[in-house]
């Protein structure tokens, strides 16, 4: 049983590190600002969730006790990291950073045109 929990903690650490590595490879290899944000938003969120689960299980298992800070930071990162990534992407779009030339679809442009038509009087 002890070896089982140890393997679970080790695999959670490894999965977290691999998710973070996926984000890092994405931020180097992807051609576009929005693609990079896409890679980083998923990778960092999932990686830090795995890390925090691992350290929570480890602290309970090793007799230190239930660590509330790790659970709090798990919930907070899981809520706030996608929100922050979305806000940065929207701000970059309204700032005028161009899309990659291979992008096939841009739904936000039509919505922005509707908004501009509505606000044209003011």
């Amino acid at each position, binding site marked *: 049983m002890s070896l089982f929990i140890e393997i679970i903690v080790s695999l959670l*650490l490894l999965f977290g590190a691999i998710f973070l590595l996926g984000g890092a490879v994405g931020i180097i290899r992807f051609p576009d600002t929005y693609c*990079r944000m896409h890679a980083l938003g998923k990778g*960092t969120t999932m990686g830090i969730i795995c890390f925090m689960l691992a350290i929570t299980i480890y602290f309970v298992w090793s007799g230190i006790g239930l660590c509330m800070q790790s659970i709090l930071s798990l919930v907070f990162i899981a809520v706030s990291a996608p929100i922050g990534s979305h806000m940065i992407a929207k701000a970059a779009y309204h700032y005028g950073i161009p899309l990659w030339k291979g992008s096939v679809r841009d739904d936000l442009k039509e919505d922005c045109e509707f908004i501009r038509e509505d606000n044209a009087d003011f």
Partner: protein
Amino acid sequence: MSIMESLFGEAADNQFLQNLHVLPVFLDIAMVICCFNLLCYLYRVVKGPALADRAVAMDSCGVTVMSLIVIYSIRQGTNLYMSCALVIAILGFIGMVGLSKYIQSGNIVDTGNIVLNLEEAEYLKDKENAEAGEELQRKAEEARQKTAENIVDVVKRQQNQQDRDNN
């Protein structure tokens, strides 16, 4: 005996971790991968063409530092460092929100004319029209008063001239 254990001498005090055999190896692997991630993010921070790239890369640096804190706190066998991870998470989110406002509008606290919704915009427009209408009415009343005074003056002058003529 793992590789990093010789670098961090305090880890020898952790009796619980010394009895394990699988976890120290994975701790080393995860630590090496996280350091490589930090190098990748720093490359994007230095090279990134847009400000948004740098902002997201620095936020991810914070997340990777959180994971390094997790590894280090497992190695030390204490949960005192987890408060630092929580603080880094909160500060990273606040920094992301502030940077997004800065990228979008050029300043963080916007005190200009913000059109929140259409109803409020129409209300502001009607209010401006009403104020403009009040100003026009006031000017018209002033003009009327002035013309009336002028008319009164002209009538007085004519009366005076008639009196002089009669005399």
